């Protein structure tokens, strides 16, 4: 039921059709960029640039490689941003997409801090800013279409389908050509698994993909939040109890003092 995308970097030709298709489908404005010594542009994902191709030149085992990597929201299975958002503006859909509802958001930007991949971007140039990130073309999916980037990709580097099927396919690709791939499907288990998964011919750190824990990053938070009600109740009881004890102590002390005073006066 949960959809995913398998990105096979060995098939990607870096044509950036996906980058443009996303712009076109989401009708994003363009920004002014400079050539800083690379064909890669814009330099980062942003509120107007929901996906991009990163270009990495690397030498692996004596062979020079020019590696292309598509960056976009990973649509995690246990999204940190969904747990983080205080107003439920970010939601994990059953179909896999992590969607953002700007009618709920009030711009706290906690999701930006929470995301292990640093994906949510903010509209820094307007006084009424929203968060923007890849939507997994949820609107297109709801209409029976594939995401715009997947539809545009000429080589099939992007494959859309059931997440479980894609995992099986990825592993069979690795098994069929073990010299071609690093033996790892990135996103299968990272931070509890992501909808967008990656195959690569070079180690993932080469193009900036960190080694991440398998536990969802939401685990500690959810445990801590689970304690809220018990702590609230416990604290209320404790404080009430202590107050009652100290009040009685003070009252008893006062009574004793008054008795003494009374005695003293009557003496």
């Amino acid at each position: 039921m949960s959809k995913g995308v398998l990105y096979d970097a060995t098939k990607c030709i870096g044509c950036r059709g996906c980058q443009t298709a996303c712009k076109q489908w989401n009708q994003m404005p363009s920004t002014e960029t400079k050539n800083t010594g690379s064909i890669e542009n814009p330099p980062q994902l942003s509120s107007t640039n929901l996906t991009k191709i990163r270009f990495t030149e690397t030498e692996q085992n004596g062979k020079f490689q020019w590696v292309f990597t598509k960056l976009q929201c990973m649509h995690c299975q246990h999204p940190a941003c969904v747990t983080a958002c205080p107003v439920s503006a970010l939601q994990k859909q059953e179909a896999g997409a992590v969607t953002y509802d700007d009618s709920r958001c009030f711009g706290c930007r906690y999701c930006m801090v929470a995301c292990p991949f640093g994906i949510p971007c903010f509209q820094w140039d307007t006084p009424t800013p929203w968060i923007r990130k890849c939507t997994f073309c949820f609107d297109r999916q709801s209409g029976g279409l594939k995401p715009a980037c997947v539809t545009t990709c000429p080589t099939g580097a992007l494959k859309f389908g059931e997440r479980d099927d894609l995992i099986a396919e990825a592993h069979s690709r690795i098994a069929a050509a073990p010299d071609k791939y690093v033996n790892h499907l990135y996103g299968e288990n990272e931070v509890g698994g992501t909808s967008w998964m990656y195959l690569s011919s070079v180690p993932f750190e080469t193009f900036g993909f960190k080694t991440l824990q398998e536990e969802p990053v939401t685990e500690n938070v959810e445990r801590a939040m689970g304690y809220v009600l018990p702590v609230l109740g416990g604290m209320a009881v404790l404080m009430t109890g202590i107050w009652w004890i100290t009040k009685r102590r003070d009252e008893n002390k006062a009574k004793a003092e008054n008795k003494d005073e009374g005695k003293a006066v009557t003496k």
Partner: protein
Amino acid sequence: MTNHWIDFRNADVILIMGSNAAENHPISFKWITEAMERGGTLIHVDPRFSRTSAKADIYAPIRSGTDIAFIGGMINYVINDMEQNPNNYNMEYVKQYTNAALIVNSGYKFTDGLFGEIDSKGKYTAAAKATWKYADTAKPATDLTLKDPNCVFQLLKKHYSRYNADTVSNVTGTPKDKFLEVCQIFASTGKKGKAGTILYAMGITQHTYGTQNIRAFTILQLLLGNIGIAGGGINALRGTSNVQGSTDFALLANYLPGYLAVPNINDTNLDAYLTRARPTAVYPQGLVADNSVNWLGNYKKYLVSLLKSWYGDAATADNDFAFNYLPKVDPAVNYTHIGIIEALAKGTIKGMWVWGQNPASGGPDSNAARTAFANLEWLVSTDIWLNETAEFWKRPGVDSTTIGTEVFVLPMAASIEKEGSIANSGRWAQWRYKAVDPPGEAMPDLEAMNLVMEKLKELYKSDSSPQAKMVNEVVWNYGDSISSDLMAKEINGYDLTTGKLVAGFSNLKDDGTTSSGNWLYCNSYGYDSAGKELNKLARRDNVDAHPNKIGLYANWAWCWPMNRRIIYNRAAVDLNGNPWDSEHPVVTFNPANNTWIGDVIDGSGNAINLAAAGAKNLPFIMVAEGVGRLMGGNTMADGPFPEAYEPWESPLDKNPISGTQIDPSSVIGTFMNTRGTAAEFPIVGTTYRCTEHWQTGIMTRNLPWLVEMMPEMYVEMSEELAADKGITGGDKVTISSARGEISAIAIVTKRFKPLTVAGKTVHEIGIPWHWGYSGMSKGDSGNILTPQVGDANTSIPEYKAFLCNIRRA
């Protein structure tokens, strides 16, 4: 292309050379990726490690302009291997389908880089060219043992014996082991059942010997039996989406539609023209096949039908079918881009109409072009946007008050704003529909042409001079009913006696009873099973009906000729009509009913062994002698065999391979076009395109999303060269050649590496030519640097190899 895009997936080895398919033809990689998934190997030979190289199994660097050395080396390798291990090759194909066995004129001589005597202009004399023929020009003898020293095979072997691996590495800079690896893997496709395809683009064509570069591919592929089979062929990745259409319809100085020769001033009548242009069949003796079909023997039918479609009833047998109405060229004049600039500079051209082109940035030596335009009295620019040509008179650094040219700009509709067809590299003409109305006053080209022609007719109406007949008697009375659909029908042609569309070019006649705007496109418009008119270019059946699913998709659109998807497919079968490759058959002969199953068979007739004597048809029906030419004929300007020369501007003062420095018949422009020396400009420059921008950039530099991705003019160079010059990535740099200077942002990359050539280090830099002073994103034009020197046969400029220098700005 001999084959087509989808067919690439059938290849065992794909050699991409002089092309950056991933960046400039990204959809090609859909099929290349599939080929690789099926176990295919991708080889990329290119001066630059591009996005194509990133996907290749093997990347071999090469110095720009040394392709003939490289391919010649591959030919040498194959020939030697063929003699050692003939079972690894399809010797039957080589002997029976190519001119390997044919005996050549004993006067043929190759000395130190020259194929005979050249005149003062660098052209081979008629006497020299006469030796580039078979000993018997009507019925050439053959030696099927391929041992006769005068047979083509032995001459071929001798010619390329100089191209050993060490020499190749010395000239090209390709590491020797890398070169041999490429040879070994590509040669493996010579086996029966194996297929190797070659994809090439401007990196091969844009040289002073570009045509010979392609001839070299031809030789290699014929030796390997790769022509006519699935997954094989010589496949040009054409530089724009409809340049195939534009050449099919002769937007060229030397052709009429359908690649018919343009008449020249010596063709005083139709017969004289046909004597010159129409080839005579040549019948090789001693091969199993005994008939040379010589399809171009039908020349007269095609020309007459063309004239009937243009001049209608005014074209009759009495007036040579209006043949003399056609403009005739002077064979001594160069009418191509370089020639036009020269004529403009001399002031012999009064006015120029530039239709969907931008020569101010798109041609070589931009400063020369821009300067020459000032001599025009008037210039019309019909285009989607204002381009550098339309704005040449107010370009930076020029005082517009000194230029007297009157410039008219007519806005035109873009491709999705009009209906019509586009012919892709695979010869597939695909019909497209209008999606939106063009903005403002922009109109489709067809409408504009209609208005122009109607006006011309009106102006010439009362003129009775002979020249006026050219306009007055053209059949042109469409009025408002002109449409691409109507044109498509006229192009297909009619049987004028019945008014019905002709079924194919076999039905065209030379007696004036048929018309056809382009014989190649006969059969593109016909009738469906119900008798209703059917525009085959508009068909969209995406089911591959071919039994072995080799990707023919015969009912998707239509391709020329006759919807034959793989041409020369008669060479894909043995003499009995059985496919060499049983897993990927293109055609198979069915002797039960004497038909061919699969693709549209090339020419008619049974399989060779199953045909009657005199009807055993040779497979290469477009060649006069019916066999593929390892040795070219005397139609090539610069020799029957490709020979390695240096580019006009070379880092080497001496050609290591022979005593002849440059292609002797190169076209060399005389206006401006200063030549640089290696001492002053030691770096090899090459121009190219990227995915994100298009041609001179007029379309794409006005689109914000694309400009965001590629915002500025840039140049790519190696880390070593950058270190030498104190350049860091992102710096502004100046690149200079003998013809001018430009600014760009430096991209310093590991993807360029210096090469060791003839014992010295040679640097190469890569220069996109997408920018200009017009449009939203402005920058300097790469073509300011390039030289006005052209291919000996086609005049295509040598954009790909010249000399330059670089420094921090």
